[in-house]
């Protein structure tokens, strides 16, 4: 694998800061009553998405979940379209139909982010099959949570993905909890084994990476992508990370042991990358610049019109 260029590393730092600021902004506008429904925020998980998506080609497909803001922004979604979607406006990335849990842009290869746990895993496997059948240098990148590894769709999809050498890379963003339950309370594994160990049930390659280190995630995904495109099969990657916020807007995170959050913040992904590339000094400047972009985009988004029922009807069926 060729090491990431200084420009790439710098852009990842900016992307992670952008995600952080955007998520904080989502919380802010939520409190202002601008966001209908609920939100699933990803502060703390920036490195997994930015590092992984940094390893993808422009044609690659991305599937994520209701906790998908970081993937959308890392993939380059327009900021105003992002905020407008979360606000349910016609100017949103999905015309206001999807909301916070479904912010995708198909022109960026983002083909879905279902709210149903595990539902995206077979779909990504199918997209990876399209690439394989057409012999394209292309993969499907599939993000999901630790909790998704216990549902049937995970098992069925991984078996077929390996059997058929689908050009897919699976990334478990293990943020330690499924809603309010620690993953070890719901996931039977050999003592101390990572969830990615489950890949061995299918003879599938797997890797465990520090999800707070964008460079480590990038390297692992880059290797997995190469393996998939070469026809050597999928890889199950586990990026070990943490969500700073509760599961969803209403969750204070009371179930976390004291000190756990702080310990993870010690290893903040933004700080880690900034330090590695000696850009710690630049962080404030970047933050200020991006904060303006975020604020302006959110303000413009708030001006967006509401969609109509007629528009919604038009979205149900293709002609």
């Amino acid at each position, binding site marked *: 694998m060729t090491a990431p260029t200084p420009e790439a590393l710098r852009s990842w730092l900016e992307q992670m800061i952008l995600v952080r600021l955007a998520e904080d902004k989502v919380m802010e506008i939520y409190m202002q009553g601008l966001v*209908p*429904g*609920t939100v699933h925020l990803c502060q703390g998980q920036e490195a997994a998405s930015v590092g992984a998506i940094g390893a993808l080609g422009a044609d690659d497909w991305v599937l994520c979940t209701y906790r998908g803001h970081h993937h959308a922004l890392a993939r380059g979604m327009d900021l105003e379209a992002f905020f407008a979607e979360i606000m*349910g*406006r016609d100017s949103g990335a999905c015309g*206001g*139909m*999807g*909301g*916070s*849990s*479904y912010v995708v842009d198909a022109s960026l290869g983002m083909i879905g982010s*279902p*709210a*149903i*746990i*595990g539902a995206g895993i077979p779909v990504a496997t199918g997209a990876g099959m399209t690439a394989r059948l057409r012999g394209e240098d292309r993969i499907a990148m599939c993000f999901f949570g630790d*909790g*998704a590894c*216990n*549902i*049937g*769709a995970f098992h069925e999809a991984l078996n077929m993905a390996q059997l058929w050498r689908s050009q897919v890379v699976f990334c478990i963003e293990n943020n330690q909890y*499924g*809603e*309010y*339950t620690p993953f070890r*309370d*719901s*996931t039977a594994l050999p003592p101390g084994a990572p969830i990615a160990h489950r890949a061995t049930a299918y003879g599938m390659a797997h890797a465990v990476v520090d999800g707070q280190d964008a460079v480590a995630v990038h390297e692992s995904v880059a290797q997995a992508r190469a393996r998939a495109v070469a026809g050597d099969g999928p890889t199950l990657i586990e990026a070990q990370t943490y969500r700073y916020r509760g599961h969803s807007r209403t969750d204070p995170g009371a*179930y976390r042991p004291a000190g756990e959050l702080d310990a993870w913040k010690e290893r903040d992904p933004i700080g880690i990358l900034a330090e590695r590339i000696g850009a710690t000094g630049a962080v404030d400047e970047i933050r200020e610049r991006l904060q303006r972009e975020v604020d302006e985009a959110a303000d413009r988004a708030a001006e967006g019109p*509401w*969609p*109509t*029922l007629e528009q*919604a*009807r038009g*979205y*149900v069926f293709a002609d």
Partner: protein
Amino acid sequence: MITYREAIRLALDDAMAADETVLLLGEDIAKAGGPFKTTVGLYEKYGAERVFDTPIAENGFCGIALGMALTGLRPVVEIMFSDFLPTAFDAIAMELPRWRFMSGGQTSAPVTVRASGGGGGRFGAQTSSTGESWFLQFYGLMVAAAGSPQGAYGLLRAAIAHNNPVVVFDHKAMHLRKGPVVRGDDRLAEVGKAVVARPGADVTVVASLLMVHRSLEAAEALADEGIDVEVIDISWLRPLDVDTVAASVARTGRLVIAEEQYHDGGWGSALISRLATAGAPLAAPPVAVSMPEVLISHSPPLEDAMIPSTERIADAVRSVCR
């Protein structure tokens, strides 16, 4: 006066106190007390052997509940949102209601599956369905839907005490509504019995879940216009209480259905069809106030345009009175 949500919790608590074979399975329901706080305190009160936090594996734990029931326990399974029921359709629709039959009555499956559904929360297309009619074509399952705090309590207690599988639906937008709730082992709802939520002489409105509340609001408004509306909380979609509805319609001669679901394949069309095939005389064609044929968006104006409003129900009543 207690909340609908608390009524659910009390029903679980009272059922567990009354019968030690009752146990609970669901996601985040034990230590965390449930995503909708419907199990708060039960883990502490009854312990880890009666309240289980499950992995996210609905089909699996519904099947586990069947195994527990076949061997003498009475599990109550919580499906967080109705929209997650499809992941467990095999266990709920194809296994739970059929094993007893295939065995020639040798076994039985007293399992209660509860699910919270319904719109209004701006949760979007995959977390807003009521799901109440999804099992009508799967004969063998009883299906209940709670239209009030008392219903939430009585229907759930009845379901847990029943010796066959029952799916009990509640509505998220009702969770914080308050109402009188009489508890007790003698307050179980009667299986298959609809409830006249408001007696009236001119029009019969049959509703479920949140629509019961909105129908009652509509009835109040229409009273001022001199229209005396009878509101029936259907409560059970199987067995469907056709008799209570038919008797009411025999008096009023007018029928309006208020349902937070699509018309085709729903209990409302089943009821209208049953009355039509029975040749029930009506002074005006029945009206079904259902969801328009669009999917549910999280965008507020669209969700509001889809879920039948008090106004739409009132207009429908006016239309059948003309």
